[in-house]
């Protein structure tokens, strides 16, 4: 009987994406998350007394240039060497793009598969044959698996492959392969990488994506980690997903429907965050808060959005006791049907509302509005303009969303007298 660990997509030193800083955010706790998750992996291998570790590609981010990352990796590999644990690695698309890969010298317990042809490493104790081929270039579009060697007789055979499998949404279509080919290869275990979500595609034989070791942005929610594989005397295989992440991304969707006031909404946010903490066993959370629904507090919130965001952050601090970083707050509430200014189309306020209606309905953003923001747009860093949720001032759906937020804010400010007493 022996154990080994299957991990992939470590993306060492890849920063956690766009965490919004505020006073009291648990910055220190969030530092170097990918490294600490990786250290958890190493520790797991040592404490589980694993025979070896396989890594199915993407140790670093392709555009990451700091050689320190490689040196750090070497230092961690040395820990495994000291514990007598071998490591088998195939390069993924990111590794192929990385300069670090080309010059790094690993200790002798680390075996890197060649990129120009498939190869096999054999161990005698336990009797294991590991087959693999790395990425020679950042974009490999051909089926690598089909060229993998035949299984070695009376050995436990593992295929190590960086692949999109039959295609996975949100992942580049690299080294595609068919499920049938993998099954027919006669291997006992396919250790796959590239897809960041853990997935057991097949059980006979095992075809497994371990997922990445640490989520880095709001789309990588949920528990992240590696797969601990236990192989019995008759080659029977048991797998267990072990979460090793140190920070977890979560989405707190808060339904503000029917809330009477901003404080009502805050109560709901608090409850939601408490639930999230409980669900994640008190893990450090990077939580994105979405607030939606029809509520009478809509105007109240938008008339001073900054203040309510701060309230939510301080609730997170209070509730999480430093365990929650509110990554971003998105408010998309609406006024309840009965709370609308129904027929008010006369008078100056009516004129303003009509203007809002017109601007919202326009298919092209009104040039005056774009113009207002031109100065800012010139100064904004590139990252904020290209990303999916970026600031696209001349995009009509962005402007429509923004106008929906501006309308209640402006009306509430104009009619603020009514709110008092």
């Amino acid at each position, binding site marked *: 009987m022996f154990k080994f660990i299957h991990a992939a997509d470590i993306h060492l*030193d890849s*920063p956690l994406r*766009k*965490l*919004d*800083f505020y006073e009291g955010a648990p*910055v220190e706790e*969030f530092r*170097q998350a990918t*490294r600490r998750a990786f250290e958890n992996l190493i520790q797991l291998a040592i404490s589980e007394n694993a025979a070896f570790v396989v890594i199915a590609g993407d140790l670093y981010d392709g555009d*990451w*240039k*700091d*050689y*320190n*990352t490689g*040196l*750090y*990796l*070497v*230092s961690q590999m040395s820990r495994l060497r000291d514990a007598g644990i071998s490591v088998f690695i195939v390069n993924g698309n990111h590794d192929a793009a990385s*300069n*670090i890969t080309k010059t790094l010298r690993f200790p002798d317990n680390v075996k890197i598969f060649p990129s120009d042809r498939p190869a096999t490493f054999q161990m005698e104790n336990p009797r294991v044959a590991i087959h693999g081929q790395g990425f020679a270039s950042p974009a490999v579009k051909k089926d690598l698996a089909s060229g993998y060697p035949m299984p070695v007789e009376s050995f436990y055979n593992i295929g190590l492959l960086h692949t999109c499998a039959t295609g996975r949404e949100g992942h580049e279509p690299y080294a595609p392969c068919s499920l049938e080919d993998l099954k027919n290869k006669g291997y006992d275990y396919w250790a796959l990488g590239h897809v960041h979500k853990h997935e057991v595609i097949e059980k006979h034989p095992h075809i497994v994506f371990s997922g990445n070791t640490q989520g880095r942005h709001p789309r990588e929610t949920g528990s992240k980690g590696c797969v601990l594989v236990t192989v019995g005397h008759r080659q029977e295989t048991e797998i267990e997903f072990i979460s090793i992440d140190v920070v977890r991304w979560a989405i707190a969707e808060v339904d503000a429907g029917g809330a*009477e*006031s901003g404080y009502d909404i805050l109560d709901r946010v608090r409850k939601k965050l408490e639930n999230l903490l409980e669900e994640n066993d008190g893990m450090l959370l990077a939580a994105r808060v979405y607030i939606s629904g029809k509520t009478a507090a809509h105007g109240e919130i938008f008339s001073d*959005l900054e203040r309510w965001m701060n309230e939510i952050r301080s609730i997170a601090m209070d509730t999480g006791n430093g365990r929650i970083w509110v*990554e*971003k707050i998105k408010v998309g509430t609406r006024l309840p049907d009965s*709370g609308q*200014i*129904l*027929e*008010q189309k006369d*008078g*100056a*306020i009516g*004129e*303003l509302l009509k*203007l809002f209606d017109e601007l919202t309905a326009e298919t092209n953003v009104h040039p*005056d*509005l774009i113009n207002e*923001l031109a*100065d*800012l747009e010139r*100064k*904004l*860093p590139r990252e*904020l303009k290209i990303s999916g949720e*970026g600031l696209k*001032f001349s995009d009509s759906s962005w402007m429509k969303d*923004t*106008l929906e937020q*501006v309308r209640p804010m402006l009306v509430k*400010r*104009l*009619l*603020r*007298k*009514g709110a008092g*007493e």
Partner: protein
Amino acid sequence: MRIDELQLIAFGPFTDTVLDLSGGQEGFHLIYGSNEAGKSSALRALRHLLYGIPARSADNFLHPYPKMRIGASIRTGNGDVLKFIRRKGRSNTLRGPDDETMVEETLLQRFVSGIDVDLFAVMFGIGYDDLVRGGQDIIQGGGDVGRLVFSAGSGIANLLEIQNELQAEADYLFRPSGQKQKINEALIHLNQTRIELKSAQLKGQDWCGHDKAFRRALQRKEEVQSQLHMHLKKLNRLQRIQQALPLIAERKDLENDLRKYVDAILLPEDFSEKRRELLSKLANAETQKDQSHKNIESSTRAISELTFSQELLDNGDTVEAIHLELGSQNKAVKDRVQLETRRSALFAEAGEILKNLDDDLSLEEAEKRRIKKTEALKIRKLGAEYERIITRMEDARKRLPEITLEIEEMEKELGTLPGQRSLDALRQAMTDAEDYGSQEKHNRSEQADIKSALKTIELEQNRLGLKEKTFHEIESLPVPLPETIRIFEDRFDATDRLLNNIKGEFKKVQAALLEVEREIEANRLEQEVPTENDLLKARELRDMGWGLIVEIIENEPFSEETIQEYISNTAGLTTLAEAFDANMKQADFISDRLRREAGRVAEKAMLLAEQITHKDQLQQLEKDHEIAENERRQPTQEWTTLWQPLGINYRSPREMAQWANDFKLLVQKVRDLRNRRTKSDELQKDIDSHRMNLIQHLGTLEAKAIHDKDSLTSLIKKAQSIIALEEELLRKRDQLLRDKRKLENELKAAGSRLESSEKDLSGWQEQWEHAVRPIGLKGDAQPEEANVVMDELKNLFEKIKEADILQKRIIGIDRDREEFVHRVKGLVDVVAKDLAKRPAPEAALELHHRLKQSREARTKMETLEKQMEQERRRLSHASRNSADFETQLKAMCEEAGCRDIDQLPEAEQRSTKHREISARLESTDGHLRRLSGGVPVKDFIKEILEIDPDGIAGEIQNLEEAIEVLNGEKEALIETITIEKTELKRMDGSGKASESAEQIQIILAGIENNAEQYARLKIATKVLSMAIERYREKSQGPVLKRSSALFNQITGGAFDSIRAEYDDKGGPVIVGIRNRDKEIVRVEGMSDGTADQLYLALRLAGLEMYMENNEPIPFVVDDILIKFDNDRAAATLKVLAKISEKTQLIFFTHHHHLVQLADKYIHSSILFHHSL
């Protein structure tokens, strides 16, 4: 929408307070409350009523949250009414009037035209603060037209402030060329962090390069070190040999020297030392012996020279005592002189006092004047009593005339008081009238009400055509019963119905006839249908033509004329043949048509028949109508008979039924009014009788200020004041009489006090004469005089006493002196007879001197004797030591083999030399052993002797040079290794770069957040200014026109109008035109008050415009006039009154003068008062 009733059931300070706001078409509802009456609570209640009570309401101090209720009845313009109660709660807070049934919130929203709470407060409410804010906004915004028009149309008072706020918030986040703004700051931080990231990043080839250099240096260092090792080994050996060469030479010399001292006796190493010590000690002992002899001799000589007197020493204590007393003796002599002087002075002072007492007594006789203490006390006591008696007497004397005067004045005042009048009758009349006093006011208003009711009845009477009738006539008018009227109504209805039927039928037949005639006409117009007649006529013509033709053919005579006539019958033809042909064809044509159009011919015939039938029907109907008319005449006549006697204009039974009904009500009203009038008149009669009664009583008491028309209340008040006045007079008289009695008693008491004092004085005089006699005064002496004499006497006796004491002290001093002289004489006789002639003090001094000398001499002798004894002991000790040392020296000579002491030094020197050389030899061997590198010295020496000593130096230098080179290289290598090691250590896989990358992400997130907020603020600013501009374009004309007029009114004409002008920058701004000089006044030049009024004018114009197209909403005005002067407040009230014709106006105020102004300037038909 308007509010008919506002019920403050349980809210703030209110419990079941109801404001009835239903008065008027819309109404100007003025709600007055003093400061604490809860005006602002009511104002709030109005809003909470419509939009719910907020969760954190502070209006629960009386009624807890669950009990809070506001109720109302509201009504829309088209008459829909909603009655509801608002309670406090989270949901379903709207209920029906029973406080149970749920009412949908949307229902209420329909009533308020869907206007939300904020807009309601802003657009339909204006308070003093809004006014001020609006005014300030106008001034600060320079009168910008767009902004003002927008403010007017929305009710927003602080638009500029809001715009500025938006701008300021945006500026706080970002400015295109800013540094400190949040986004700008973050951008700078971002760039810095990017640079940090770059510098923290390590390149792969850097690390490899350093790693290679490190390894190379390490390897080279190993090689250099082993070379160094070899060289050093060689060098070391040569250096040892080089050092050993001189030692070997030295060793040979020493061996030669040692041979010279082989026979020397080896003495102990301390031998010389010991010898020298003994010699020196021996010399010392000899010197000591000499010194002791000399000392003993000099001491013996000194003792023999000392002398002293033993008797004096024996009487030493006595001598010292006398010497001690000498000091006090000297002092006493000095004191005695002073005492004597003081004593004579005292005697002189005493004599002086005695002389001043005007007495011939000498000092010795003064004793006669001494009195006892009790006597002195008595004199002083009598003196004090005298003071008391005199004071009392003078006081009584002074008080007597004063009291008399006061009594006289009081009597005078009593005399002026008016006489007492009897008011019982008046009092009774007043008590009787009091009950009616309270009714008088009520009755007056009742009579006014009756008068106005009369007017109403009169109007009603006129309406009913009973103008000239008296009430009695009206009440007794025999108006037919409603049943009778109804019967007539039915009868009239029946005949009318018949007539109508006939009329209807008539019309129908007439219409049918017309239709038939129209068809006949149409038939004709289409083409006349030929008749048989037509055919006959045509044939006749044809046959006539044929006859003529036949005549011609048969040559029968024919008339050309007849032929011509025939031809002319047919138009346009010239020959007979043609004419005949035409007529023949015509006849055929008609015949054909008759056959062909037989249908149409029949139709025409039928129409003609129908025409005749209809005409017959019409005739019949006219007849029926006449009959029906006749039938109708009967009830009409009866109707007239029924009404004529009443003498009023009567009309149809249906109208008269309504009339009878109204009449019945009128009669009821008349009856009520008659009763009320009777009651009121009776009451008035009673009141008048009481009035007359009071006037009569008052008249007897007070002629003036009574009028016949005075109201009962005022008369009662007058009576009350007269009675009060009378009672006041009575009280005053009593007080005066009481005071007078008191004064008379006092007068009596003062008289008797004077008398007793005079008696006391004569008794005192006797005692006084007796008392002052001992001190030499007569009876007429004043107490002060006696006191002075007593004080002086006391002074005198004190001085005499002091002089006596001094005398005693002088005597004592003289006695002490005598005793001292005696004692000195006795002592001198015993110890120093040579001093017997000297005065005692001198002798005493000398004795003391001699005693001191004798004591010193004796002490000196004792010291010398002790020293001599010591010296003798020292001498014997020195002698013993000297012998001992000599013996020891002799023993040392024997040890060294010398005959005497003088030979000892040489023996010692030889011994030392031998020892020295041996030691040096030993040391040289030691050195050599150390250099030999473990080889025995002898072998080492042998080995060296075989080497060429001249080559060694060159070889050493070569080696040293090689070693130096190698060491330099080694050092350089160590440095390289250290540097590379540090470099590599620096590249330890640190996470610094990745931390910077994380930091960049955090900064980006912050920028994104702030950029979103910035975008929202900028867009809000832009959209608002777009809306302002659009609204201005649309509404500027009407708003300015209307507000111009309102501004003129509100400023009481001080301003003529307002209009748009262009400011320096070309933007449109509002300016005022002053009436006086038509001068343009910019808003910056307006006073705060005027700007407020301009704002008000704009607001009201905006409101009016809104009302033109929308369901009105009540306009709530909260005390906006408090800073207006009376003229402008009145003008504004008038303007508001005008607005209250279009929408309900609810005006809250604390200020009573505004209530009065409203009463004065607003017509009572639209002004309704309410108070809290």
